[in-house]
């Protein structure tokens, strides 16, 4: 029994909490560092962004509180709505497109012999290893309407010429295609590797049972493979959604002028402007940091809502 002089002598409920904390003191000590880092480099900047979102600030002057004026401006800004529509369209195409293709490839690769499987895994993952900067510039060149590789190949089969990045209707799909095939995060490379690893962990007995029941290949996929890949697919869906909704690098590199003094990318005519790109324009070109912060908060809310929705609806445990 602790004496009244002991630091452990407290009222019963406080003694319990403090004792629990004291018992787990090393755990708290170890997580203190990441918490401090998170607070300093993530949470504090987030609070500052919230502050700037209700302010007018051009970085070289004072921070003036303006209430919800920035948010009201966004609500009436047709370019912001265009950017939001581009972003959602981008996410809704790239993520399912990448996942579908990755799943299809994984199903094709999985039954192969070990050596062949290793070869294909390496072949699909290699583009993901390259810097997104290099990949974007290479694809930009392949997309050149005159003398680009894609129009040359299209011409061989009697198609095209296409305008790709120089057309307001073709530019965004062009960037989407690049991301599906080459993105290190949401491209097919990383997804194929993860899906193959997940498929490897499915007990073979389940397939044996399915075979004994007379299941076709499609039925085996539908009732055994797909349900047991759900966790991995959910993870890829959430990560992919977050990444696509934050798209900036590929847009900046593929649509900004390489050889002139043109200030703005995200074109032509805003056709590839995403929310994050529009944040960049407002922050660093027109120096409206308050407006840019407001956009960032809106995007944060959207991404958070989508991530929570996906996690709740899709992350169901499956057991056999």
């Amino acid at each position, binding site marked *: 029994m602790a004496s009244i002089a002991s630091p452990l002598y407290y009222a019963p409920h406080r003694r319990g909490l403090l004792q629990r904390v004291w018992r787990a003191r090393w755990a708290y000590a170890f997580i203190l560092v990441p918490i401090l880092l998170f607070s300093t480099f993530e949470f504090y900047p987030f609070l500052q962004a919230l502050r700037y979102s209700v302010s007018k600030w051009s970085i070289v002057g004072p921070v003036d509180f303006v209430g919800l004026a920035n948010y009201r401006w966004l609500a009436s800004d047709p370019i912001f709505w265009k950017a939001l529509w581009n972003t959602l369209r981008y996410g809704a195409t790239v993520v399912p497109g990448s996942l579908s293709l990755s799943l299809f490839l994984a199903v094709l690769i999985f039954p192969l012999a070990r050596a062949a499987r290793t070869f294909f895994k390496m072949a699909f993952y290699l583009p993901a290893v390259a810097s997104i900067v290099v990949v974007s510039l290479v694809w930009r060149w392949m997309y050149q309407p005159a003398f680009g590789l894609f129009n040359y190949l299209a011409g061989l089969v009697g198609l095209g010429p296409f305008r790709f990045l120089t057309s307001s209707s073709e530019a965004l799909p062009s960037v989407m295609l690049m991301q599906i095939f080459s993105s290190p995060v949401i491209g097919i490379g990383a997804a194929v590797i993860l899906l193959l690893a997940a498929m490897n962990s499915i007990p073979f007995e389940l397939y044996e049972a399915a075979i004994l029941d007379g299941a076709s290949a499609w039925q085996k996929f539908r009732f055994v493979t797909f349900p047991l890949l759900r966790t991995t697919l959910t993870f890829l869906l959430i990560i992919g959604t977050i990444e696509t909704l934050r798209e900036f690098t590929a847009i900046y590199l593929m649509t900004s002028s390489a050889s002139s003094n043109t200030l703005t990318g995200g074109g032509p005519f805003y056709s590839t402007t995403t929310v994050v790109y529009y944040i960049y324009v407002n922050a660093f070109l027109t*120096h409206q940091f308050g407006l840019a912060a407001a956009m960032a908060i809106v995007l944060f809310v959207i991404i958070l809502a989508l991530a929570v929705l996906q996690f709740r609806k899709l992350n169901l445990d499956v057991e056999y």
Partner: protein
Amino acid sequence: MNRKHLHILMAALALVSLVLSACGGQQAEPQTIRLWIWSQWNGKTGIEPNGQPLDWWNDQIANFKASHPNVEIEMEDLSGQDVDINAKYDTAVAAGNIADIIWVDESYFTKYASSGVLEPVDEFMTAEDRADFLPNDLVLSRWDGKQWFWPYITQANHLAINVSLFKERGAENLLPAAPDYAWPWDQYAEAARALAFDRDGDGTTDVYGVGFGTDGAYTMAEAWGDHLYKQGDESRVTINTQNTIDAFHALLGLVNDGAALPGSGTGAVDLDTNFLQQRVAMVNTWGIVTDVETLPENEKFELILAPFPYGPNGEPTVWGGVHGLAVTKQEDPDRLKLVMELGRHLTSTEALKDVRAWSKPARVSLLEAQRADPNFLYEEYIPQFEAYTGVLIPLMGQGPNAVPVLVKYEPLIEAIFTGDLTPEEALGQFESEANTILSQP
């Protein structure tokens, strides 16, 4: 001498030495100057085979330190797009640690000048300096009646023309001629159509007559008579006129006729690489001479530089720019003087006179030094440089709203060439949006 006298003497000596050491300490106090630059050539002269980007800068800093031994200079090379450099400046200003001397150009400096970040250089610019700088460079570095930085490179968005392709097509008569290289729109358009051809007879165009980016398009439009702003008045845009509409229709005509590189008028078209590979005969460029001159021998071609063609009511035009070194706010007048001295030194004739890169100097004396050198590789370009820099205009304006207005302009110009808007619609929409920006406090 008794003990009391000895103590008094020692105290007096200590006091004297204290005073003397304080004086000596003020003179010997080391100063550190931080310098952010954008290196534009390799090597000390720009033409050494193994020259490094910072050779010239290190050499000039050493020269300055020889006469200022108590000065330390910390230099950082910011080579890259000017948009991103200015994003770095924004962050540094917010953090309170911007360098003492920073590279600037005509696009962004007014934001910092109007916010009190920069020091005007007038007081430190001698009459000889003013007479030596190219007049347009002084105009482009001036705002609110003051000079805000030391110019050292004259930039311009101008035409680069592949003369070898003109000769291949027997169209030399269509080239602009010395001394002013000025040419009317009809001649340019005729040349563009003549220089678009199928070289190997397979039915596809192998060479295009012209290629232009978004900036080339709206610069060419300004050569038809009207400008983004009336000179000296940036309270509203004045570009939505019949002259400009006609200019964009004329440019669209080149695109529709197949004379222009596909994608012209948009930001994603790659002009420099196609021009260097001789797939397009004329492009707008901010600088391509060095790239052409350093091509392998079997790929080199003859090049001339020219202003943009002028429309029926216009005159030869290029979009003028200038790079320079600006001095940021200094608390101490003596330190300000020292930092200004370094800025002036780095942009002086004395420092730059041996540079033999295609450096597009901002001083007349440097042009003369290059012209007088019989071994100067780019001597033939000097008259062309003088011709097009003589018709510089500050296209995007110089007020604090210059960049926000241009950010509205460019997508609308792209929309003309993607077919989303007609020139009339694009210019009308731009006028409305730009004047809204300009009318805000």
